[in-house]
């Protein structure tokens, strides 16, 4: 039988390598998915440019961070990128409003089929992707500075006397705090403010909303602004956590869409739940449980293989499989695809 400390060690191990990474990755996905679902609900199309727009804001953040670092401004133990973030949000708002004005607005006014707008968004995705790669190239950039950890594994071990450490990275801490604040703000905005209510009305029934005097242009503008805020923050948090690389942002598209569909298209709470469903499934299925089982099992039963369900190279296959299961069993998603 495993002793008490063995069990605690095993739990700490899982917390450190599965729970914490999944929680922060899930928060980043949830923010991105929230942006996708807002576009879905109000503008009625799947925004394929989401991943690359996230990359765009991150690129702006990185450039401003470098500028700040060069002039000697930093945030102490916090990453300097936080100072640059507001500028990136403004840049992103301008960028999405411009794409709306020059591209999406035309199709909206024409009452085009949703799939045509999806295709236009694919065009925007490639232009944005090209811009991002043109500015920073296809390589990996790390722009997080300040303290890397809030609690290092060694400190944790010294504190508790356990064999396993639970490290909390600054980026993880930031991701979770900011995500909670931001989601709280979005829900408050949608439920309590007049503009938020107008957005919900517009999403629910466009004609009725127009009849009751809601300004459609304003609704669309506010939606894009909200989307830009969510997109920028999600992109920068992801970049602080994993480093910036143009292709990895593009590959976030599938998990984000899966999160939206799992939760139910157009449902903000669904997008958040969906984000965590995807991130936890990925973490749980790609973690190698060898060490965990060594703590818990008697010596005879201990495994020699890695005890991994799926190699990490097939991570995004998990989002796809979840997507397929949802499409087969419950196409409306967990929250029945309620509109906002």
């Amino acid at each position: 039988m495993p002793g008490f400390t063995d069990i605690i060690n095993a739990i700490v191990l899982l917390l450190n390598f599965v729970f914490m990474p999944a929680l922060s990755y899930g928060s980043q996905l949830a923010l991105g998915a929230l942006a996708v679902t807002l576009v879905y609900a109000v503008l009625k199309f799947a925004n394929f440019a989401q991943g690359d727009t996230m990359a765009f804001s991150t690129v702006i953040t990185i450039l401003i961070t470098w500028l700040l670092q060069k002039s000697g401004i930093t945030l102490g133990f916090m990453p300097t990128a936080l100072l640059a973030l507001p500028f990136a949000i403004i840049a992103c708002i301008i960028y999405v409003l411009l794409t709306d004005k020059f591209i999406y607005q035309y199709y909206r006014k024409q009452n085009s089929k949703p799939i045509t707008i999806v295709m236009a968004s694919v065009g925007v995705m490639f232009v944005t992707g090209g811009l991002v790669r043109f500015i920073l190239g296809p390589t990996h950039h790390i722009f997080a500075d300040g303290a890397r950890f809030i609690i290092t594994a060694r400190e944790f071990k010294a504190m508790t006397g356990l064999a396993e450490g639970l490290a909390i990275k600054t980026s993880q801490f930031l991701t979770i705090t900011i995500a909670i604040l931001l989601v709280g703000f979005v829900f408050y905005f949608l439920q309590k403010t007049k503009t938020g209510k107008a957005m919900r009305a517009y999403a629910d029934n466009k004609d009725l909303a127009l009849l009751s005097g809601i300004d459609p242009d304003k609704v669309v503008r506010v939606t894009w602004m909200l989307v830009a805020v969510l997109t920028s923050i999600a992109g920068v948090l992801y970049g602080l956590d994993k480093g910036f690389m143009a292709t990895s942002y593009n590959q976030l598209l599938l998990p984000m869409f899966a999160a939206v569909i799992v939760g139910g298209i157009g449902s903000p709470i669904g997008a958040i739940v969906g984000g965590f469903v995807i991130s936890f499934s990925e973490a749980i299925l790609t973690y190698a449980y060898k060490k965990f089982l060594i703590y818990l099992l008697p010596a005879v039963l201990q495994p020699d293989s890695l005890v991994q369900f799926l190699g990490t190279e097939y991570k995004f296959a998990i989002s796809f499989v979840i997507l397929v299961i949802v499409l087969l069993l419950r196409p409306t998603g967990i929250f029945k695809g309620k509109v906002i």
Partner: protein
Amino acid sequence: MSQYNKRVIVTFSIMFFLLLMVGLGQSWSLSLSILNLCLISAIMTLGVNIQWGYAGLFNVGIMGFTALGGLSAVLISKESISKAVTAGGMRMLVALSIFLLTIVLSIYIYKKFKNKWLVIATILAGYFITRYFYIEAAQSIEAINPAFSGYLGGLDLPVLLSWIVGGLLAAGAAWLIGKISLGLRTDYLAIATLGISEIIIAIIKNEDWLSRGVKNVTAIPRPVPYEIDLQQAVWVKEILAKLYAGSLHLLPVSEQATALKAHISDAAIVLVKLCYSGLFVAVLLLIIILAGLALDSPWGRMVRAIRDNEIAASAMGKNVKQRHLQIFVIGSAIAGVSGAMLVTYNGQFTPGSYIPLRYTFLIWVMVIVGGSGNNLGSVVGGFLIWFLWIEAEPVGFWLADLSTSFLDQGNFIRQHLLENAQYIRLIFMGAVLLVVMRFSPDGILPETNKKL
């Protein structure tokens, strides 16, 4: 002559003229290379045009279907590695059959007992047994001579067969995806195809036992003669000696032989490419004729009726989902065929080269620019965009060079621009797509039989 016919003739003459210019100005070999890739692109574009133009199905995963075609070229034509087959072939076969058995069994249990826990238990058990056999099999196959083979090899059959098999493989994948996602929201298909194409590429890159992963498979057998054989063939020599008799006589006798040799080696390259062109043109014509016949048949009218008004067509008793599935499978199969053709032409299978920009996005630009719903338009779009694509890189580089020429060589901005000039193509092509969609949604050759 109608306006439309004039347009067709003018665009095709421009294409011919461009190729002629490249042939005369640069070299015939380059001109034929461009032509061959244009032909392959045109077939790929046709596949997508069938999906988008006939039925309005948005496939964002063309890359995956072409990669499946490419994979089939390897699996059909390469010689089998007998050592690897004896080492792990049996266990891999066991793993595969258990995998298939699991799927069949879980569907059976689901239908018979309607108990989801039983189904989940079956899938989990099947998964672990499969994985047990699979890991050992993969390791033992990959251990055999990893620097040169390290995979199972192929079936050692003629490579032309892989064009058909590639189509079938892509059709199978498309059927699976279509079955799941068609009949729901229209954008679900787009998202599902995006997913499946990424998974197919991940499998091809990581499963070394299957096709060597990113280590690439080279020297795929050809359906046409090799240059070296043509150079030694007597008839080639005779023909060229006759052809160049005039210019050869002007040279001193001692140089005549070397000059003839140079002509022969040039001619051999051109001849090989011409053989490929012949094959590709045959396939393209076959597909265009079949697609045209299908579009003019009652089936084609039904398909267009569904595209233009799904609800009305469905009210008339047409099975919309079934037709969509059919079209999606057919279009993807054509993309698979073209993928196999491309790998055959290149003579190598390089999974690293499958990027969405080249295999999904570029094809979309071809469809939209050429004219969605028009088969000849796909050919024109495939041709023009491929031509632009090849020329856009030097132009982008030149622009970057020119716009920064006032800066000195080591300047940071100049260096950066020159390094990243290739991404201007991405922006440029995206802009072309957006502009054409917005201002000329019909494309170069608009759909002719739009009215029913």
